[in-house]
């Protein structure tokens, strides 16, 4: 009997686990199957009933399309973790390994939590595409950041490079830094990694919420935000594919060629979210084209601005750190970015060191871009003339059809 009780407990645990896989509309069925078990005679019959129930729930949850998405995520996460996994010789390898595992686990579990607390994803492709895009960007950031951090902390094996390395480390001369040649002098601290994880949670959480039904962000708002964000992201990346530092970006767009793009990047940083907010406020409509109340429309504008700059920051950071990491692993990219000009080994090392040191700017970008987006979109949305509200605008927002 004790064994049966234990098996029943295992079945109950399996049921709870399987229920997580279910879409929101299926939870009632999971509860129903379990409640019905009380009708079944205790013993093996009841255990068989519960086992069948777990199977039915799991089969419902793991529908082919969902299974395909899970497999795709597993493949992408596995590839990112494999590329990001630090060698044991790397300084603070344990911290980096924790970061990789925690990020993958977060990306796997946050959508499940979001479905439970925020409801299903908003209807239409815009929300789902945005989720996929952001998940891909966060995964792409993993190997980029790990490789760049490892390089930045690696004392060069050649004594001739030591001065460049020490200057990049913040020393005024080569006397201060005394790392063993070819050895790692340190690595990411725990505090930094935890802050990075919190930022990942914030990004993923905000995007999951804004693309869920509960947020009531409309498809047009999501489309406006995504377009603005990607445009800004492309410009920002083109300005400085090897880090925001002047030294690192010089090979790509030297001198005046870069200036109009830099100006455009500034305009988009400040004006992009404001413009997205104005557009989103003007285009915000409820289901069936119904007018929305003023505060809801302003909310759509702010969501568009925050999302636009958040997407831009994620996109630029993922591509930027990815390019720097690629350059550190294969110098052909550096030579190609220098338009085929010959680079001495020490000049190449200087570029690599500068680029890996400058990569920290991407983290500031991830923090500040959405904040700037919030401020500018609030201004933009508040200043958008909405005209006199029509009587129907004062009606409650109709529920989004399921």
């Amino acid at each position, binding site marked *: 009997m004790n064994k049966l009780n234990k098996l029943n407990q295992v079945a109950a645990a399996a049921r709870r686990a399987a229920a997580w896989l279910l879409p929101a509309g299926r939870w*009632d069925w999971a509860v*129903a*199957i379990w409640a019905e078990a009380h009708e079944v005679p205790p013993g093996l019959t009841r255990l*068989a009933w519960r086992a*069948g129930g777990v199977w039915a729930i799991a089969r419902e949850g793991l529908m082919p399309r969902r299974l395909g998405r899970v497999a795709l995520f597993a493949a992408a996460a596995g590839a990112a973790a494999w590329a990001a996994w630090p060698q044991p010789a790397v300084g603070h390898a344990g911290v980096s390994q924790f970061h990789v595992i925690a990020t993958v686990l977060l990306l796997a579990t946050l959508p499940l939590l979001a479905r439970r607390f925020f409801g299903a994803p908003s209807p239409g492709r815009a929300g789902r595409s945005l989720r996929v895009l952001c998940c891909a960007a966060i995964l792409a950031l993993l190997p980029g950041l790990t490789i760049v951090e490892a390089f930045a902390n690696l004392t060069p094996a050649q004594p001739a490079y030591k001065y460049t390395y020490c200057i990049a480390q913040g020393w005024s001369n080569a006397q201060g830094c005394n790392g063993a040649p070819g050895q790692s002098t340190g690595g990411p601290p725990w505090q930094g990694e935890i802050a990075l994880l919190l930022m990942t949670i914030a990004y993923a959480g905000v995007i999951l919420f804004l693309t869920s039904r509960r947020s009531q962000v409309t498809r047009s708002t999501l489309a406006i935000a995504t377009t603005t964000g990607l445009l800004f992201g492309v410009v920002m990346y083109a300005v400085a594919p090897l880090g925001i530092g002047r030294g690192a970006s010089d090979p790509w767009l030297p001198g005046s060629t870069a200036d109009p793009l830099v100006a455009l990047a500034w305009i988009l940083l400040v004006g992009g979210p404001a413009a997205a907010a104005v557009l989103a406020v003007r285009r915000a409509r409820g289901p069936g084209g119904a007018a929305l109340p003023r505060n809801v429309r302003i909310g759509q504008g702010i969501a568009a601005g925050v999302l636009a700059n958040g997407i831009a920051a994620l996109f630029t950071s993922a591509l930027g750190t990815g390019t720097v990491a690629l350059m550190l692993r294969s110098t052909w990219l550096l030579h190609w970015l220098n338009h085929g000009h010959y680079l001495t080994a020490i000049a190449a090392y200087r570029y690599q060191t500068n680029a890996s040191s400058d990569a920290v700017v991407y983290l500031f970008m991830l923090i500040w871009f959405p904040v700037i987006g919030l401020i500018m979109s609030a201004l933009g949305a508040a200043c958008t003339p909405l005209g006199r509200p029509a009587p129907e605008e004062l009606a409650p927002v109709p529920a989004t059809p399921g």
Partner: protein
Amino acid sequence: MTSALGFSAQTLSVLAVLCDQPSQWQYGYALAKQTALKSGTLYAILIRLADRGMAEACWQDEPGSGRPRRHLYRLTAAGLASASVALGSAARPTTTKARTAAVRGAVVGVAP
């Protein structure tokens, strides 16, 4: 094994039981006993029927003594019409022997 209307023999047996007293709400274990289906098969069928709008489900108002509230099921008007056609089709002599044998027990006493 599916019928001309796309119902499996197991689905037809569930439809037959639900058609028997279409106005009455039925609960899962009673359906399982009458159809001799296991819970994994039965609930998959009920979920599909509900998705197609052929069956409706609700929770019992009050829990019984010592047991939680029951989830109850019955056919909708559209479900009843479709089920009658499907069961009639399955019972005709033109259907395959195997299908007829599979659903014969379930359709006995059900007017097509």
